């Protein structure tokens, strides 16, 4: 009776998550669509200027989208070598005992709150970047990318390590038996064998970088222009929503435009997640 009851309860909880997702999606559409209607979809997405409180207001989010994509892309350039390197080292090179110590430490990085990363960026990294490149300000595209890159290392490294460990031992042994060196085995057998897991890890890291809000709000500088150099201040989509939602009058065009940004971001991240599913399905 008791077991039966719990068994019946579990699907209810699973169903609840779906309900929340549906609710959030529904709200995003309801609150965001009026902006597309008022401004025009293409003008909204490809408009180059964001002056939401100006008279008349301008709602073009192309600079915001490009900032988000650009910062995420650079974060990946920084994070991928770091995390692949550490994942390969942990799973293939060192002894299992050291691995048991090292892996939790990397995963611990994932537990640091993003506001702490942001604070670290403002206090330590931004002045460093400013001095090193002799810039007028250290709150730039580059600073935000570096911090985001560090933030997503644990996600990518940990999942990549899982994927590499899942490559069957027989395959590796066969490679050694054919006379391949350790390096050849790693680069030509293990990594290709784990590639679908690695791609999934990278895409998940990408999703996290794109949705990250607090850090970019603190260190990206917040200028709403299309980034032309990595030494300029930029403003990703998430930072715009976080900075402006509090003061936008409810029901105003500005308010709906912020929801429309959220909707665009949601669709972007959704596409990445579908890609993840598609790749892992195809490879299996």
């Amino acid at each position, binding site marked *: 009776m008791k077991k039966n*009851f719990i068994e019946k309860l579990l699907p209810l909880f699973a169903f609840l998550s779906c309900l929340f997702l549906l609710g959030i999606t529904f709200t995003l559409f309801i609150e965001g669509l009026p902006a597309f209607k008022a401004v025009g979809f293409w003008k909204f997405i490809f408009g180059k200027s964001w002056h939401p409180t100006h008279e008349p207001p301008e709602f073009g989010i192309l600079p915001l989208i490009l900032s988000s994509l650009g910062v995420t892309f650079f974060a990946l350039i920084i994070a991928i070598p770091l995390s692949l390197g550490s994942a390969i080292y942990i799973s293939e090179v060192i002894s299992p005992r050291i691995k048991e110590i090292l892996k939790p430490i990397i995963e611990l990085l994932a537990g640091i709150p993003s506001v702490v990363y942001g604070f670290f960026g403002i206090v330590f990294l931004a002045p460093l970047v400013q001095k090193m490149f002799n810039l007028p300000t250290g709150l730039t595209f580059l600073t935000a990318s570096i911090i985001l890159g560090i933030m997503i290392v644990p996600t990518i490294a940990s999942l990549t390590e899982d994927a590499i460990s899942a490559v069957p031992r027989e395959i590796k042994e066969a490679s050694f038996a054919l006379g391949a060196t350790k390096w050849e085995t790693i680069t030509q057998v293990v990594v290709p064998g784990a590639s679908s897991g690695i791609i999934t890890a990278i895409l998940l890291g990408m999703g996290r970088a794109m949705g990250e809000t607090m850090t970019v709000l603190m260190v990206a500088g917040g*200028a709403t*222009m299309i980034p032309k150099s990595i030494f300029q201040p930029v403003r990703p989509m998430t930072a715009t929503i976080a900075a*402006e939602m*509090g003061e936008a009058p409810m029901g105003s065009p500005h308010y709906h435009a912020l929801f429309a940004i959220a909707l665009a971001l949601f669709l972007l991240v959704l596409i990445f997640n579908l890609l993840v599913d598609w790749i892992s399905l195809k490879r299996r």
Partner: protein
Amino acid sequence: MKVRGLWGPVVLAAALVIVTQFYFCGLSGARTKSRERLSIQGSTTILPIAQAIAEEYMDLADRGLLPEMDITVRGGGSGVGITALLDGTIDIAMASRPIKPGEIERARKKGFNPVPTIIAKDGIAVIVHPSNSIKGLNIEQLKAIYTGQISTWSKVGGQDKSIVVISRDTASGTFETFKKLVLKGEKVRNDALMLASNQAVATTVAKTPGAIGYVGLGYLSERVKALEIDKVEPSQRTVVNGDYKLSRPLFMYTHGEPKGMTKKFIDFVLSLAGQRVVKDLGFVPLG
């Protein structure tokens, strides 16, 4: 036990929810019995004032000098505060800007009549790095800097260094005031850094030799240099007597004229004790 099948879990969940509701209501009800509650939400600029005054009020109430009430104060921004007021979830909305036409319309539709009370004033100080040789600017120069017509300090009599323009994000009450008083309808140059709080602006200006920014009077310190505007230095005195032009009123909005508990609290804010708190926090008291 016949209530099984699909309904079993639902009934259990509902029962759980109801039981916890009663449990917690019972607990808090016992603690705050016979006390009235007042909830305040809105502008983060006014938040420290409201928090400090609420603490002072409850302190005096504990000593029996004022009628007891439980006051909760939350931030979120002027827009959030006014929205919450119109939704009927709070008693007082703090706002660092006047209510907007769209918000008034919404209030009318719901049958509300939001009434402002000015509770303090705030001067907006224009700040630069302490190493900057500039002493002051006039409003036109300030406007030219923020709109991008002037981009080096040498054009306004300073060193040959490019100006890093720092602004607040476009939704903040501080920005709205600055826009009205300085920009007069023009746009901020789009490579200006837009930061999310007064504190962030102050910190960044203190660390950036070529920077210019603006913050509330309460955020001035020796780490930044406040400029004279039209030859008047920003201070509580110059804001009160009207010589310093960059100032704004801070509001508390209520449903209709304040009455009951709401009136008691707002009267306390406007009293000598309340206005002393305003002054101690670096804002400008009324009168």
